[in-house]
């Protein structure tokens, strides 16, 4: 199974995640609309779900989150959990037989990002950090979601490439990608 993963999407997703980590810690950390850091990696985790479905989205989100935790220094597994939520939530909508146009996929990405970013303070509180769950989240989540919608059209082809999802496969909702 591990061999199949290594020959499959894992190296590509990891590669993209490392590149996005570079962007996340530099340009994304600097561009702060309304004082909020744009979450490029979270958007990518949600994109993975939107193009492939809930299970693979969750697994890809977990992998992207681990790269984030290792690169940024957040408790290992904490961001992996929130990005798993993002990937799963974005992929959840793919179960319905809807035409996967880019704007519908962007909407699914928005759903995943909103839930994923919203889960961050909950997970942080769960692991013992105090004063993380504040009203600031009312600004953070909508801003992160909106910026994710803006960058989603760029990330969608990247997500398809990373998960080896052909456009024809994208147009057959409900099928799991191998």
């Amino acid at each position: 199974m591990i061999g199949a993963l290594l020959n499959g999407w894992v190296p590509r997703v990891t590669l993209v995640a490392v590149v996005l980590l570079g962007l996340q810690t530099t340009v994304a950390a600097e561009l702060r609309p309304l004082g909020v850091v744009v979450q490029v990696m979270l958007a990518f985790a949600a994109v993975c779900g939107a193009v492939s479905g809930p299970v693979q989205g969750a697994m890809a989100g977990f992998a992207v989150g681990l790269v984030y935790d290792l690169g940024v220094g957040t408790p290992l597994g904490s961001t992996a959990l929130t990005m798993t939520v993002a990937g799963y939530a974005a992929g959840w909508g793919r179960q319905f037989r809807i035409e996967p146009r880019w704007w519908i996929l962007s909407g699914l990405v928005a759903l995943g990002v909103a839930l994923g970013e919203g889960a961050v303070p909950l997970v942080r509180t769960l692991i013992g950090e105090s004063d993380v769950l504040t009203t600031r989240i009312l600004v953070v989540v909508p801003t992160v979601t909106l910026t994710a919608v803006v960058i989603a059209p760029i990330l969608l082809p990247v997500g398809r490439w990373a998960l080896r999802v052909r456009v024809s496969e994208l147009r057959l909702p409900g099928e799991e990608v191998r």
Partner: protein
Amino acid sequence: MPTYSPGRRRVIAALALTSLLLVTLDLSGNRVFDGIRSGASVITRPVRTAADVATQPVVRLWRSFRDYDRILEENRALRAQVDAQRSAEIAAQNAIIENQDLLALEGLESLASYDSVTARLIGQSPSNFDQQVEIDRGAIHGIRVGMSALNEAGLVGKVTRVLPQSSVIMLATDPSFAVPVKVLGTVATAPTATAPTSSDPGPPSTGTDPTSTSVEGTTTETTTVTTTVTTTVTATSLPTIVRETGVLRGQGIDDLPRVSFVSGGTGFGRIEVGDTVFTAGGSTSLAPPNIPVGRVINIITRTGTAGQELEVELTADLARLQFVRVVLYQPPTEAG
């Protein structure tokens, strides 16, 4: 119709449980994870450096767009402020030198006694829930977890993660940040003047010979005049120093750090808006004493036995850090 299979549930549950397991192991201090993290940092460093170089034009353009008007206005205000403070600076430098001379004379430690490492900021926190920055100096430069970071203005934060060639600093605004501090207030003594006393003229003298000595809140001025000797003792409004100690805690990016008092402080009511806050030091504090932290700008009265809290405006501008100085200080309990 949505499909939902037991297999999916198992995968999601496995991922969630794995995450929680990793978090638990990591928070309990796992050396293997620390090694993996150091390795990941080394591996991803070239990518991050490349991304930093490639995105610099975009970042600079964005900064120019965002900050131009504000910087222009600030520049005008700062020029005026610099002019106003030139004379004060000379007096302050003199006072600092005298202070260091006195400390050296008495064999007391001061901030200048400790070695430090100057570092450049190489990254900001990519998260919306942490206030951290990354610097380009690490373990090989002598930096250890817990050491204090400051800039010219005052306390910036403390080191929370150290890699061989870089470190992460938790800013003083982070909700997890805490440091023992002391609040130095001043109470002006009510001026009291004694009536001039006259004595026998004694041998006549020509001219005046004023001498002045200052003793904790009082000034004694002696003036010798030709015909009479008049001594006037006046308690001027020179301050009495009030000192309270407490713990400063960050409150997040939108709120000012607060000082809560450990002892409940009977003399607490004497603290006023504008009083200065310094690190307290001590045998268990990771920060050395007398690092400037900020000024009290609000006193919050809480009901019951909770006592009062002080809102502190930090002297260091954490939004625009470029360089920080890490003080290579470890308290006696840590240094062994």
